[in-house]
């Protein structure tokens, strides 16, 4: 029996707004427990929710990037459940009218391009952080109320690779749009997988298993590949798949049972009467889209127009902060190709060596661009530029200052160079004779002597040109 996997993903993205989804309580990470809460987050009686404008703008931007229909009437529902992770006793979410619906994105996998349908995108609030010990649980409500968007795909993925590529693309979109930092390992982007198997060609869905809270792209792929293999073995031997929730165990690289789902929970959704429907104007929606930060795909096209090859362009957009650094550097007017080489090469190797991100890199990209411009003008050689670059990292000084301090300014003054060239040729007349006799290497000797006399500071291209002119005059 040939089986195929049916995979759908639910992704929760924590937005990096300044305030919470329904309150002006601050959004901040890593602070002491319960220090970023206000009366709305703690559900004090009589408090009322207000909808965060930036969260709505963010949701519109992501919906647009995912080619979704955008609903211009914003409404919220209450998802009622008895649990300690939200003090109200319910979560405010968009159950009936998600702001984004019926979209898609295109992924590139080893077997080519594939379009993945996206059913819905809705806004909601995050729950509190719970720390479970063996006999008690500790609650920190700092996270309660942080704006979330939930993106629900259609069950159109068929492998771990496709699912990982899909999440990678979503992560790229939300980070380039400045909606989220997209850090899976820190929980800013959380992914739940629904997976079932069926006989290839069948229209019926098999029993689905949910895998919760996968915290890296690699783990998504591994968990799905394992689950496909686990379910295949059960079905091949005539067994039944149980409807259950599982988690991925990093140590054993296997999914393990969390709980069996006996019956579906009824959350008794109803429209939140504390939030009157909000009508978004056409101008508001268009403005949110028009002022949206540039997406990775658009940057890729722009870089290709700057004559960067596909490989270099892809490396630059693989990290939003790297692409921002590169774009800033371009403002210096230096060559895009040279800048890309420096960013991908020297800068990246320093970051790798030090284990830091480009945001922590001590040389600002405009200064790097200026250094590259000086190389282009021939004021410093490539080798000298690397020495200057090393000093820029150490001292945080600008390129021009360091070039002066290090005595590296190239001699590009023609009169000064001609004087030195004449002196060198006068004492080496045989080289002129040799060159004129066809020994091209003789010119190298003269260039070497000129470099020696100028302590390596002569502009090599200019020196070469002037030497040839002087020889022709003799």
């Amino acid at each position, binding site marked *: 029996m040939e089986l195929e996997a049916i995979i759908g993903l639910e992704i929760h993205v924590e937005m990096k707004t300044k305030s919470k989804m329904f309150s002006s309580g601050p959004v901040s990470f890593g602070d002491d*427990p*319960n220090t970023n809460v206000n009366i709305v987050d*703690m559900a004090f009686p009589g408090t009322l929710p207000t909808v*965060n*404008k930036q969260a709505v703008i963010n949701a519109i931007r992501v919906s647009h990037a995912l080619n979704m229909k955008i609903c211009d009437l914003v409404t919220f529902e209450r998802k009622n459940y008895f649990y300690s992770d939200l003090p109200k006793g319910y979560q405010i979410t968009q159950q009936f009218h998600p702001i984004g619906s019926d979209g898609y994105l295109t992924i590139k996998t080893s077997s080519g391009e594939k379009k993945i349908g996206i059913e819905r995108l809705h806004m909601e609030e995050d729950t509190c952080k719970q720390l479970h010990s063996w006999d008690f649980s500790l*609650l920190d409500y700092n996270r309660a109320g942080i704006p979330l968007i939930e993106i629900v795909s259609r069950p159109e993925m068929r492998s771990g690779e496709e699912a990982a590529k899909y999440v990678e693309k979503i992560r790229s979109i939300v980070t380039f749009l400045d909606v989220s930092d997209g850090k899976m390992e820190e929980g800013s982007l959380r992914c739940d997988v629904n997976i079932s198997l069926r006989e290839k060609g069948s229209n019926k869905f098999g029993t689905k298993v949910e895998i919760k809270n996968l915290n890296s792209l690699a783990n998504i792929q591994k968990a799905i590949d394992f689950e496909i293999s686990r379910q295949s073995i059960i079905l091949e031997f005539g067994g039944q798949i149980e409807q259950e929730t599982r988690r991925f165990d990093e140590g054993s690289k296997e999914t393990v049972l969390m*709980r069996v789902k006996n019956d579906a929970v009824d959350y008794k959704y109803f429209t939140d009467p504390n939030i009157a429907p909000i009508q978004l104007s056409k101008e508001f929606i268009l403005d949110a889209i028009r002022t949206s930060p540039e997406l990775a795909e658009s940057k890729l096209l722009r870089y290709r127009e700057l004559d960067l090859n596909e490989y270099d362009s892809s490396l630059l957009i693989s990290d939003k902060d790297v692409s921002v650094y590169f774009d800033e550097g371009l403002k210096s007017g230096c060559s895009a190709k040279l800048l890309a080489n420096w960013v991908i090469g020297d800068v990246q190797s320093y970051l790798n060596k030090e284990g830091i991100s480009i945001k922590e890199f001590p040389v600002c990209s405009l200064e790097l661009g200026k250094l590259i411009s000086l190389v282009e003008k021939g004021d410093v050689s490539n080798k000298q530029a690397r020495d200057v670059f090393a000093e820029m990292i150490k001292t945080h000084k600008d390129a021009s200052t360091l070039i002066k301090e290090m005595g590296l300014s190239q001699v590009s003054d023609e009169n000064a160079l001609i004087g030195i060239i004449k002196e060198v040729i006068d004492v080496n007349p045989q080289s002129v004779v040799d060159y004129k006799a066809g020994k091209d290497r003789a010119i190298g000797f003269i260039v070497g002597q000129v470099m020696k006399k100028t302590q390596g500071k002569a502009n090599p291209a200019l020196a070469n040109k002037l030497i040839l002119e002087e020889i022709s005059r003799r």
Partner: protein
Amino acid sequence: MKEVNKEVLVTSANKLMFDMSDEEYNNLLAEFDVIISQMNLIGDIEGVDEAIPMTFPFDVTNTYLREDVATPPMDRNEALRNAKDVVDGQIRLPRVVK
């Protein structure tokens, strides 16, 4: 509508992880009798099934969205004043996952 009897109340209470005395269940059942008879009265109104459930008293929309500006949070002691058990600034409960 499902009949609300003692068994339904016990099941619901246990799903919510609590129990009540027989007297409390009987009191609650008596209250439900009143509520259900009143609902039946409403149910007798002609055409009530066609009425659209109403959330808001008026069919109006709003345009207000709050600017994304954070205001100072509550003092932590004040925020946790009603909590019975606080450890290291966190509310402590009996373990809430099985």
